[in-house]
Each structure stands twice: as structure tokens, then as C-alpha cells.
């Protein structure tokens, strides 16, 4: 009853107000707007206070952020050009403890010391760590499988809040010190510090995750483990031929010992593409344990060492002079019988020569005549050629810390400087610069950017990068190159580089011997080198071999040429393959001179043609036909150099 009366009252009132202000909802809606804005206001005030004025919370946030650790995905692998592994991650185990829960417990402390003893950790180091007022500290990072097994039993005595194991990845370089300067190395946190590891760090490294190391009021650790392993990094395929690298490394090391040299380095590239095939720098280091070797051994001298190249440089001076028609191959130069006073200096030759053609100047390596050609070229023209050949600037190889060498502007050259540049002084070069410039003569005049990574592949097997040869400049005509190659062939046949000859494939090149500049004086300490290419008619490899301060002998022809010949011969012969297609013509990958090609093809013609079509033909070795073996489905032709 009363309710009914009441509601009547209200309804009459509400209809009254409705006439005046319309729908009462309007007012209530505006009140709602006010309330909502007030709600946002309260939040903003509170959030502002917490964000900016609460020192206590800031301290706590800071303390918490210290207890995170980073777990990384497996780092990408590095392969050589034939798919052989040269760097990969292997599992390792990292041991941590929580000193807060261990410090007061005598028995547990004893166990920790026992672990330390087995892992050969210094007693003091462990007791220091136990004193730390943190909840997480590494006992030892990256234990090997064996080390881990030896302490596993003791670890099991602890609860998982006291001592624990986190699986990490450790970098492993199966070839040790052999490719150290190319792969580079990583630190304990798997960050690339040198070589490809550094240059391609962002591609190689696996995804990182941070793990929160939480603790409760009692200091017990609650680890926030990821649902699965973080994804690995990208794999890198290099242009390096690990077999060549091994060969070069061994031969270089032997000769270095024989010659009692301080160091040795070499770089091999494919002159047709710019691919780096091998790079060795001695003394080397083991990238598995980089800190155990002196820092100096980590310098990759084949692209980071700047030196005066000496006579190998004559090639570029003579080629430039031929290209610009300053000299012709039939010109004759007077070589002053081995001693020529030019301005303030005296230039000497090892072999006393009277008159010589450019061919003889290169083959016999006359300093006097090379400097005359240099003077004929003039400062500006020579400078421009050298600049275009890449001297004084980086080659752009995909390795970190490349040196650009020294090539001062021609306006600062004295005449004497111009003269000595002719035989490779007053200029600073890296071995890679020499090899790159040299390749342009071998490949009919093209400057290529040397490169070492051929492709990068994602964990899902997608190719995300594929390298291709990069032509930068065309410097020499084919004619100039052919002439220069024949001059360098002459060096090997009758000149200073006789020991660089490679039977069957034939080689060509240039020797170099330079004195080192120490404290502003040229001393009797030498850099002996040889640069060459082979096979002569179809160049597949350019190899530059350098010895630093050899003592037993010092001429490049004596010290470096034999290593060149031996390495290149073995390399080419292991790559000699003939394949025969059904049309019975044959294709070669590597082969010798035309005359030898003819010999082989004549031999193949002499075989019964129907047999050749039916059976697979394999040709092994190189040289001349030694014997033929016939099985049910294969004909094996064994070749031999003699």
C-alpha cells in the first residue's frame, strides 16, 4: 500500500522534472562522465606517485633486476666450401649456487669445497663467492661432459634452490689453430670477438632469453625456466677450402721452422670470383682457448698486417706502364750493371744486368729498371693506377678489422719516393690487397671484392644471403694481362722464381724480398714472399706466401716459392677431375696445358667408343696416362706426372 503511494509520488515528481530538463538520464550520464574521469584521475595520481616518488620501490626494482641471467640459443655453425664443419656449438654445463642458503650450513659448505676441488677451482675463489650477499653466483661456467659427470653425484645432495645446473652452449673449433684467424673466436658468453664470429655475430648468434632468478622471503631460488630452448642462429657457409687451409698451414709451419722465421702468413683466393680459399697467419692460436695465447698471435696478418712488399710490387708498376703505353714489351732499358745513383740514393740489383726488356726486368727482378719505369709513369699516373688497384683502401672483405695500408697522395711524393715505389717501398700494403690486385692481372683486368661467406642459411633451411662475385673496376686490357702473365711465367721458367714451377699445371708468379724498416732505418731483416697463380692456362688459384724475418735464407725465390709450388700442386691435383658425357667429349674442371689436354683427348679417342658410352669413366691424378683399369661398370684411368 504505502509503496504504491510512494511510487506515485516519485513518478509525478519525475514527470515534472522531465518537463523542465528533459530526460533525467542526461544528468546522470554527465555525472557518469565525471565519475569515470575521476577514476582515471585517481589512477594517474597513484601511478605518478609510484613511478616517480617511491624510493623504496625503486630500490627493490633495482635489486631484482640484478638477478636475471641470459640463456642463449645455439650459435650457428660455420662450414667450409665443401660442407665441412669448422665451428659449432657443443653442449656444456654451467654450475651455479645460492650462497645465501649455503653459507651457514657447515655440511653443505663442505660439499661445495669438494666440488671446487674436483673442478680445480681455487679454494679462495670459492670461499669469496660463498661470502657474496647475492642469491646467484656461478661456480664454474661451461663444464665439459666429463667434468659434469664427475660432480653430478655431489650436486644431487643439494636441493634445486641451492645448487643447480644450466645447460649452455660452448663453441668448439674442430680444426683448432688451423683456421683460427678466419673463424675468430667467442667469449664465454658466446659473443663473437674476432674473425667471422665477430663480423657475422648478429647472424650467428642464437636468440637470447633472460631468465628471471626470483627468490622468496627465505632466499630460495625460483627459476623461471623457458618452455623450450631458444632458437639457434644462422649457419654460415664460407668459401674456405679446409683441405687447402690444412695443407697451407702445415707447409707454412714447416718452412717457418726450417727458415727460423719469426712468422709466416699466406692468402689464397680464386682470381675469377674473389672467393677467399685459405688464409693462414703464424704463429697462430687455438680459438678453443684464445686467452692462453699471446694477444699478438691473434692478429690475422693476411689482411691486418701492413708492410712494404718489395719486388712483387713491380708487377703492378710494369702492368700500369704497359697499359698506359708508356713502355712497350720490346723496349730496352739500361740497368746500370747493378748499381745506379739516383738523386740522394743508390739503387742496387741482386743480378747485374746491362740492357733488359720489361720481360727480363720482371723475370730477373731488376730494381733499377723498375724504378726507371716508375719514373717514366710519373707520380699522378702511377698513383691513379695504384689507387684503382685498391692500395690505400680496404678491399671490403667480410672480415673485421681490415687494414687499409698506406698510400700517400702523389702531391706529397718526392722523386726518390716515386723511384722506390717501383720496387715496392714507400708503400704499405696488406697481403690481401696484393692478392686482390694480382688477381686482376690473372682474370683479364677485373678488380673483384674478395669475400669469404658464400651463403647464410636460417634454422629453417632458408637461404637468406647468397654471395656473388662483385666486379668493382676493369683496369687492365686482356693484352696487358697476357703480357704480364707471360713475364711472370718467365720468372718461373728462367728468373728468380724457378722453385715455384708446378709440373703439368704450370705456374707463373713473382718473387719479393724486402728489408724491414726499424726505427727509421732499413735493417738486415727481411720479408720474403712469392705470389703466383696456376694452372697457367686456366688460373684457378692465386696464392701469396710471405715469411717474416727468415734467418736461414732470405730471397723470396728461395724461401717462399717452394711452399707455393708444393701447396698449389697438391691442391690442384686433388681437384683434377675429368667427366665424360654421353657425346664422348670431355669436360675438365682443372687441367694442364693445351698440349696435355690434347694428349688426354687423343688417348680417350683411342679407347673403344662404345665402351666409353656404357661405362663411367674416372680419371685420377694428373699428368700422363700411367695405366687403365677396367671393371664391370667403370673405367679408371690413372694419370701420373712422369
Amino acid at each position, binding site marked *: 500500500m504505502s509503496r504504491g503511494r510512494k*511510487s506515485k509520488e516519485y513518478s509525478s515528481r519525475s514527470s515534472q522534472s522531465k518537463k523542465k530538463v528533459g530526460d533525467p538520464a542526461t544528468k546522470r550520464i554527465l555525472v557518469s562522465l565525471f565519475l*569515470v574521469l575521476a577514476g582515471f584521475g585517481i589512477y594517474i595520481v597513484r601511478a605518478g606517485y*609510484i613511478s616517480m616518488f617511491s624510493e623504496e620501490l625503486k630500490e627493490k626494482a633495482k635489486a*631484482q633486476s640484478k638477478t636475471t641471467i641470459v640463456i642463449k640459443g645455439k650459435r650457428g655453425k660455420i662450414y667450409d666450401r665443401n660442407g665441412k664443419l669448422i665451428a659449432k656449438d657443443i653442449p656444456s654445463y654451467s654450475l651455479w649456487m645460492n650462497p645465501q642458503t649455503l653459507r651457514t650450513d657447515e655440511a653443505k659448505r663442505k660439499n661445495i669445497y669438494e666440488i671446487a676441488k674436483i673442478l680445480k677451482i681455487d679454494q679462495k675463489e670459492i670461499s669469496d663467492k660463498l661470502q657474496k650477499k647475492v642469491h646467484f653466483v656461478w661456480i664454474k661456467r661451461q663444464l665439459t661432459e666429463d667434468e659434469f659427470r664427475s660432480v653430478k653425484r655431489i650436486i644431487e645432495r643439494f636441493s634445486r634452490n641451492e645448487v643447480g645446473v644450466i645447460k649452455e652452449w660452448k663453441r668448439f673449433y674442430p680444426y683448432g689453430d688451423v683456421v683460427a684467424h678466419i673463424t675468430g673466436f667467442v667469449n664465454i658468453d658466446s659473443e663473437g670477438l674476432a674473425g667471422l664470429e665477430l663480423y657475422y655475430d648478429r647472424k650467428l648468434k642464437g636468440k637470447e632469453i633472460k631468465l628471471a632468478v626470483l627468490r622468496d622471503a627465505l632466499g630460495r631460488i625460483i627459476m623461471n625456466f623457458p618452455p623450450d630452448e631458444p632458437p639457434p642462429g644462422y649457419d654460415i657457409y664460407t668459401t674456405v677450402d679446409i683441405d687447402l687451409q690444412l695443407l697451407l698451414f702445415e707447409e707454412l709451419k714447416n718452412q717457418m721452422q726450417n727458415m727460423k722465421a719469426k712468422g709466416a702468413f699466406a692468402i689464397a683466393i680464386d682470381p675469377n670470383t674473389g672467393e677467399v680459399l685459405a688464409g693462414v697467419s703464424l704463429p697462430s692460436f687455438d680459438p678453443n682457448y684464445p686467452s692462453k695465447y699471446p694477444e699478438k698471435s691473434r692478429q690475422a696478418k693476411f689482411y691486418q698486417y701492413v708492410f712494404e712488399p718489395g719486388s712483387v710490387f713491380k708487377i703492378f708498376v710494369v702492368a700500369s706502364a704497359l697499359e698506359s703505353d708508356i713502355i712497350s714489351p720490346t723496349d730496352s732499358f739500361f740497368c746500370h750493371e747493378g748499381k745506379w745513383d739516383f738523386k740522394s740514393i743508390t739503387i742496387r740489383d741482386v743480378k747485374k744486368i746491362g740492357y733488359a726488356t720489361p720481360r727480363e726486368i720482371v723475370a730477373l727482378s731488376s730494381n733499377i729498371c723498375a724504378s726507371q719505369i716508375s719514373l717514366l709513369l710519373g707520380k699522378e699516373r702511377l698513383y691513379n693506377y695504384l689507387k684503382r688497384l685498391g692500395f690505400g683502401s680496404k678491399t671490403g672483405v667480410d672480415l673485421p678489422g681490415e687494414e687499409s695500408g698506406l698510400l700517400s697522395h702523389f702531391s706529397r711524393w718526392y722523386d726518390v719516393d716515386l723511384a722506390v715505389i717501383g720496387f715496392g717501398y714507400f708503400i704499405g700494403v696488406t697481403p690481401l690487397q696484393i692478392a686482390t690486385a694480382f688477381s686482376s692481372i690473372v682474370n683479364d683486368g677485373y678488380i673483384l671484392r674478395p669475400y669469404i661467406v658464400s651463403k647464410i642459411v636460417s634454422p629453417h633451411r632458408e637461404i637468406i644471403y647468397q654471395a656473388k662475385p662483385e666486379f668493382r673496376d676493369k683496369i687492365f686490357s686482356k693484352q696487358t694481362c697476357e703480357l704480364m702473365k707471360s713475364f711472370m711465367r718467365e720468372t718461373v721458367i728462367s728468373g728468380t722464381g724457378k722453385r715455384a714451377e708446378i709440373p703439368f699445371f704450370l705456374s707463373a708468379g713473382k718473387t719479393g724480398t724486402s728489408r724491414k724498416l726499424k726505427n727509421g732505418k732499413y735493417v738486415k731483416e727481411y720479408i720474403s714472399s712469392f705470389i703466383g697463380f696456376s694452372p697457367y692456362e686456366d688460373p684457378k688459384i692465386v696464392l701469396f706466401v710471405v715469411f717474416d724475418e727468415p734467418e736461414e735464407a732470405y730471397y723470396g725465390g728461395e724461401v717462399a716459392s717452394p711452399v707455393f709450388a708444393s701447396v698449389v700442386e697438391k691442391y690442384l691435383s686433388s681437384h683434377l677431375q675429368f667427366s665424360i658425357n654421353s657425346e664422348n667429349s670431355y669436360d675438365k674442371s682443372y687441367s694442364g696445358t693445351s698440349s696435355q689436354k690434347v694428349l688426354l683427348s687423343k688417348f680417350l679417342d683411342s679407347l673403344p667408343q662404345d665402351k666409353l658410352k656404357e661405362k663411367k669413366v674416372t680419371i685420377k691424378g694428373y699428368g700422363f696416362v700411367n695405366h687403365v683399369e677396367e671393371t664391370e661398370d667403370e673405367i679408371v684411368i690413372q694419370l701420373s706426372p712422369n
Partner: protein
Amino acid sequence: MKSYLVVFAVLILSAIGLLFVFNVTYVRNFANPYIFVQKQAIALALGLALMFVISRTPLGVLRRLSIFLLVISFCFVIATLILGSGDAKRWIRLPGFSIQPVEFFKIVLTLFLANVFSKIEKIDFSTVISFVTLGLFLSFPVYLQPDYGNFAFIMIMVIFMLFIAGAKLRYLLAIAFPIIPLLALAVITAPYRMRRLLVFIDPWTDPQGSGFQVIQSLLSYASGGLTGVGIGEGIQRLFFLPAVHNDFIISSIAEEVGFLGIVVIVLLYSIVAFVGFLSASRLKDRFAKLAVASATFFISAQAILNLLVSVALLPTKGLPLPFISYGGSSTIANFIAIGIMLSGISAEENKLS
């Protein structure tokens, strides 16, 4: 003009949401770090499409559909109790995704209530009682799921609708009294709620348990400071165990972009609230008025509740932050609410012109 402002605000909020959903989830799921962001992007696209369609639909059509939609969505909520899996039966799992029917039920309920209240001239005490009872009945399955956050939110929506429909404040206060013993009962029957309540009063009593999320949230604000530690630089996201991409996403944002970023986000929500309520106040049609106001409240109230939880001014509830938190169903429902707002605004603008 007004519609553009609202759409602009909502799009920015969604973009911020997408960025941070990625930011906080990619560190967790390695098999497919983009899975959350992909799902959220799909929900955003669906939501935008629905918003567009609804904004072009006259409100009268929605009004006629509201009772039908309410019945259907209510059936789905009940279905979760049968089909739902796990401890909290909130989702209906389908291949590739799952639906949280309560999110759709909430927005449909506001539409239904706007329809009903637009027809009731006077609201007396019996009306209040009967609607509160109806609200309790409709939200009971949500309570059973159990999803107390949404249960509470539904009751708040019912009371809000009674409020703007013109119920006397006295009546509303009167029904507030029995809530206290009810709350006490709820706390006693489920002890973890007691813990939550205690933790709310002092989160540091149990920093590893219930207070954990709240403490980590506060620490996030503190380490963010005025300008934040930088996007992608935050580490607090590692400490939130399951809820960083939905309920506590604002804490991660606070850490990475700081107080200034928070102010921007609140301004964007304020734009939505301002435009929505002002438009509603100007509408002549009572249904349109109530529908637009309730849609606006639907967005603003969820935002406020979520934000206040993150600064420990309310106990942990499990309500998402509209447009920013990860969650397909709630994102789509929020866009439906914006669609309703836009439809009302355009009706108003048409009349003016």
C-alpha cells in the same frame, strides 16, 4: 568528427596493444614467437570489421536483436560449464583458437538493459530489486566458471544501468548493504579469495604468492619512472608469470615507456569516455542514449578497473585492459561497444544536419 576522434583513439590503443603483446610474449614462446601477436591481429581485424558494420546499422535493429542475442550468448556461457576444460571453465576451445563467451555476453547484456530501461518510465524499488535479481541470475554461470572479475563487472553494469535510467540513489545504496555479507560469504567459501583480499591490503605479506603479481606491477612502475627504460628493454615482463600479456600488460608498458606513456594511454581512454558520454547526453532517443552511455561505460569501467588493480588500489580481478590486453573475445566485444557508440553518434549528427 566525433566518430573520427573515437576511432583514432581506439586505433592508437590497439597499435600500442599489438606492440606490447609482441614485446611481452616473444620472450616466452620460442616455437613461434609471433603466435600471440598473430592471433591478436586477427582479432583486431575482425573487431574493426564488426565495428564498421555495427556503426552503419541503425540502433533500432540492434534493439530488436538484443533479446535474441542475449539468449544465445547466455547459452554459450552455460555451455562453457559443460564443454570448458581445466579448473576455470571459461573458454570454449575450437581448433586453432578459443572463445570466451562471457565477453560477448557482457556487451549484449548492456544492449538488452538499454532496451528494457528505455521502455520503463519510472524505476521504483521493486524494479531495482528485480533487476539486481535478474543480474545475479544471469551472472550466476559466470560465478560458477569461476570468473569473479566478470561476475562483479556484470553486477556493476546492472547497477550502472539502473543509475543512469534514473533509479533513486537511496535504492541503489539500499541494495549495497546485503553485498557486504555476500562478499563475506564468498571470501569464507573460497579461501584463496581471502588471501587475495589480505594481499590487497598489504601485498608484501606474501611476495611470492598472491601478492606477487601486484608487487611486480608496482616495481614495474617504479623502475619505469618518468620516461621508462625503453621499448624492449624492460625486464619486469620476465617476472610476471602467466598474466603479463593480458591482465598486467599496463605494468610492462609502465616500465618501458614510463609515466608519460601511461598519461598518453589514459588520455586516449578519456577521449573515448568524453565523446561517448557527451554524445549520449545529447541524444533525444532514450534507447540510443542509454545504449551509447552503457557502451562508453563498458569500455571506461573495464579500463579503470584494470588500471586500478595494477597500482594496487583494487584487489586482483582478472579483467583485461580494453584494446591493449591480449584476448580475442574481449577485443572483439570492445569493438562492438565502439560500433554501438558510433552508430549513436552518427544518428545524433544526422539529426543536427
